[in-house]
C-alpha cells in the first residue's frame, strides 16, 4: 500500500475507526503518513469537540412565505417596497396640505387688490363713460365687402 492509497482510504473512514492490519503496518513504516495521521486525528477531535449545536431551523411555513416573497415578480416587489417607503412621506404631505388648507383665509381680501375701477376714479357723475363708442367700428357692410375674396 502506498502513501496515496493509504491516505485516501483513511480519509473515507468514519471518525474513530480503527486501522486494518495492512494500514497499521504502513503507518509504522512511514513517518510522513504517521505525521499525517497525527494531524488528522488532532484536527478531527478538536473540531468535533468544538462543534456548535445548531439553533432550530425556521418552520416550513416561514420558509414557504420567504419563497413566496422571493418568487414574487420584481416589479411588484419594487412597487410594494417603494410604496412602503413612500407611505410615511405621503402621510406627512397630506397632513401638511390639510394644515395649510385649514390656516388659509376663507374670503378673498379686497383691500389687497391693486386694481382700481374707472368708476371709482371718475365718480358717480360720469356714467356716460361706460357707453360703447360705436363710431370707431365703421360701417359693417363695408367691412364685409373688404373681406370678400
Amino acid at each position: 500500500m502506498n502513501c496515496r492509497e493509504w491516505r485516501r482510504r483513511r480519509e473515507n473512514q468514519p471518525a474513530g475507526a480503527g486501522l486494518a492490519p495492512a494500514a497499521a503496518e504502513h503507518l509504522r513504516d512511514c513517518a510522513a503518513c504517521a505525521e499525517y495521521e497525527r494531524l488528522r486525528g488532532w484536527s478531527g477531535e478538536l473540531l468535533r469537540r468544538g462543534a456548535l449545536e445548531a439553533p432550530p431551523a425556521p418552520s416550513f411555513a416561514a420558509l414557504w412565505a420567504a419563497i413566496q416573497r422571493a418568487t414574487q415578480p420584481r416589479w411588484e416587489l419594487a412597487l410594494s417596497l417603494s410604496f412602503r417607503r413612500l407611505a410615511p412621506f405621503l402621510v406627512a404631505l397630506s397632513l401638511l396640505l390639510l394644515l395649510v388648507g385649514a390656516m388659509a383665509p376663507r374670503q378673498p381680501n379686497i383691500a389687497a387688490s391693486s386694481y382700481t375701477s374707472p368708476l371709482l376714479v371718475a365718480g358717480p357723475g360720469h356714467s356716460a363713460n361706460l357707453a360703447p363708442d360705436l363710431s370707431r367700428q365703421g360701417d359693417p357692410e363695408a367691412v364685409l365687402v373688404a373681406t370678400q375674396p
Partner: protein
Amino acid sequence: MQTESAIWTVLSTFVSDDPDQLLVERAQAGEVAAFEQLYARYQAPISRMVANLVRNPADTPDLVQEVFTKVYMALDRIQPNLPFRPWLYRIAGNHCLDYLRKRKRQLVRLDPNPEAAEHTQPVDPSATPAEQVVAQDLVNKLFAGLKPRDRWLLIMKEVEGLTLEEISAMTGMGISALKVALFRARRRLQRRYGDMRSHQSEASV
C-alpha cells in the same frame, strides 16, 4: 396523506441511487409537499453545517432559510448527474462563504486590526486541545483566522463526516487536489493554534 408520503419515501430509495431523486422530481413538478419532505430531511444537517461554518448562532436560522429559498428557486437547474445531497451542500456552502466574506469586509471596516482582538482570552497552555477552555470558544478563535474555504473543507470532513468523493462533487475539486487542500487547511489550523499558544505564553510571562 402520511401513508402516501411514506410510500413515496420508500419508493424513492429503490428507484435510484439517489434517495432524494423522486422527491426532487415531484418538487420540480410543483408539489409543495415533496419540497416540504426534502426540507424536513435536510434542515437539521444543513443548520448544523451552517452554524459550524459561520460560528454565529444568531444568523444561522436566516441563513438556513436563505439557503432553502435558493434551493427551491434553483430546483429546475439541478444537474442531472449530481445527486441532491451534494448539490444542496454546495449551495449551502457557497452561501455561507459569501456571508463570511461580507462579514469579514464589515469587520475590517469596523476594526482595522481584527487579529489583535481575538487573543484577549487566555488559554491554558499546559492542557491538551481537547481539555482546554471550552472547545467551542477555541474553535471560534481558530476559525476566525482561517480562510472561508478552509473552514468549509474542515467542517465537511471532520464534523459532517462526508467522504472525499462527496466533497469533491460539492466543490468541483479533484480527489488529489482535495486531499492536498484538506491537508493544508489542517496545517493552517495547527499553525494558528501554535501561534495562539505562543502568544498567550508571551502574555503570561
